[in-house]
């Protein structure tokens, strides 16, 4: 599977000029609100016709302004999950789910209906009206409705943004299962590092309508704060590790990242599965000697790679700890007091409860 998107479009004062390619899996379009993410995904869907651009999927020309090709939205077979669920209020959940199946040329309640209903855990909602569902349930039904239309590509525009943290946590596992089971390429728009870190294989960073970075998720999300349009709060590194085991009495999971071991809290993952950890730079402390009698469970020894001064007086320190690079944000005062320079040995301290996964 391969997806190529190029678009140039003027919307009032805002100009969009962006291009990216994807080779399957989840591609995240990442950036602040107003960066052009939604315009770009609408161009892929065909809901917005760009002044010029191309959309290619597996060699099929879906749209090409030069060749005057524009496949109408309803013939593209691109599933779209919107920020709000947009369920049809006059139809029951079952008929909402079945809506796209009919146009896809499938009828009745075949095996994939049961499979997708099961995947999303919405079997008990089928006879209800959309108005009787919670936000999280609505969004799961909307995802199921898009999947049941047998799409070639699934577009998701901040599907979790309208939900509170508890609902997000409820849906994320379903999205992970979807990514792993459904084998449909997904373009996922988000401004949340946590979601992107957890789901995406590739990340395309958008800022003011331009692509400022793109590449593998671990690379892009671990880049210094300046390249990320996300605001500094969430800047950090993305590590990929393997679950070694869980200590049930303390509900702690050990994850091996290269030769290092990190202990994190509140995860349900089976031993041997891959896990992505997002460690925000603001959650990492540095010490020049190994701390003792401290509550933080992860102390990694490493050498300072770089020190970058940020505009607000803070310093972004990259520490190479064996096979993992950790970013820490400290004050300039701490840098001077501890006399931190590249090559110096330091200990990075990460609280187990601060790790996003």
């Amino acid at each position, binding site marked *: 599977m391969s997806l190529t998107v190029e678009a140039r479009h003027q919307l009032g004062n805002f100009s969009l000029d962006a291009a990216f390619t994807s080779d399957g899996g989840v591609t995240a379009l990442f950036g602040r609100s107003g960066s052009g993410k939604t315009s770009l995904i609408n161009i892929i*869907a065909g*809901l917005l016709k760009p002044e010029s651009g191309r959309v290619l999927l597996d060699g099929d020309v879906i749209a090409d302004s030069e060749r005057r090709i524009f496949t*109408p*939205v*309803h*013939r*593209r*077979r*691109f*599933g*779209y999950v*919107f920020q*709000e*669920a*947009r*369920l*049809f*209020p*006059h139809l029951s959940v079952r008929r909402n789910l079945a*809506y*796209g199946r009919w*146009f*896809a040329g499938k009828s009745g309640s075949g095996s994939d209906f049961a499979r997708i209903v099961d995947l999303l855990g919405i079997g008990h909602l089928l006879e209800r*009206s*959309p*108005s009787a569902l919670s936000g999280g349930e*609505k969004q799961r039904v909307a995802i199921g*409705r*898009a999947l049941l*239309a047998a799409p070639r590509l699934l*577009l998701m525009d901040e599907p979790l943004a309208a939900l509170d943290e508890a609902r997000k946590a409820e849906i994320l596992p379903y999205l992970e299962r979807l990514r792993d089971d459904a084998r449909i390429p997904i373009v996922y728009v988000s401004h949340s590092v946590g979601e992107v870190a957890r789901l995406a294989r590739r990340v395309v960073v958008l800022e003011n309508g331009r692509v400022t970075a793109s590449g593998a998720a671990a690379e892009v999300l671990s880049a210094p704060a300046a390249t990320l349009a996300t605001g500094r709060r969430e800047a950090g590194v993305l590590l990929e590790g393997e679950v070694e085991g869980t200590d049930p009495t303390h509900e702690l999971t050990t994850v091996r990242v290269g030769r290092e071991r990190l202990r994190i809290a509140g995860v349900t993952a089976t031993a041997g599965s891959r896990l992505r950890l997002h460690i925000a730079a603001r959650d990492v402390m540095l010490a020049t000697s190994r701390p003792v009698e401290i509550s933080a469970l992860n102390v990694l020894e490493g050498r300072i790679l770089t020190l970058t001064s940020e505009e607000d007086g803070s310093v972004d320190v990259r520490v190479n700890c064996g096979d993992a690079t950790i970013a820490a944000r400290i004050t300039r005062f701490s840098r001077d007091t501890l006399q931190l320079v590249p090559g110096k040995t330091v200990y990075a301290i990460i609280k187990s409860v601060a790790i996003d996964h």
Partner: protein
Amino acid sequence: MGGQPYPKRPRIGERYPLDWLAVSDAEWTAILLSLRVATVAMICSLPFALVVAMLLARGRFWGKTLLNGLVHLPLILPPVVTGFLLLLLFGRRGPLGAFFADYFGLVFSFRWTGAALACAVMAFPLMVRSIRLSIEAVDRKLEDAATTLGASPLWVFATVTLPLIIPGIIAGMIIAFAKAMGEFGATITFVSNIPGETQTLSAAIYTFTQVPGGDAGAMRLTIISIIISMAALIFSELLATFAARRVAAQ
């Protein structure tokens, strides 16, 4: 309806010497005629009203303001003027009247069909208005969602837009029916006041008031027209409540 005269055509005011509440055959004829005229006017104008409401709510084309003005004209013009214009256009020698008579065998002048046409034209702006407002209230994001699920524009209309505007359509139909039941000026100007053919309830009441001792008859028909209007209103409320419950907002 052919032009066959009725075997007995009692005149308004010709009374049976019983209780004043007894409705005469002539009056029954007027009531049934009114119901028929209003029903036909309501049903026949519905598809046109739907198309025009859709154009006005969604369309972007040259002359939209003109179309809007044209549709609302019967609401603003004196009914007599509308009736006279209909006479010019749909009279036997009028351009449209001749066309319909030659190609469809449909004659409007001095027939009940003409009364239905006059009522439909007078009620048209009200029906369009009601449907247009409900179309404008439809969340277009739902239509986009349907499109991404593979529905062509026509299917989107049939499966999403139409079900969502049903309450507005019902309201429009009822208000058009009520307007048609009460229409007087344009009808009497266009097709006159012929008992059994074009004499509707309103025209019959008017005739009663023009003859000495006709007050009782006018009163009877007035009561009947109140009953019909109330029934229509209650019926529309019930339908609208039912429809609104089905399309309850999320």
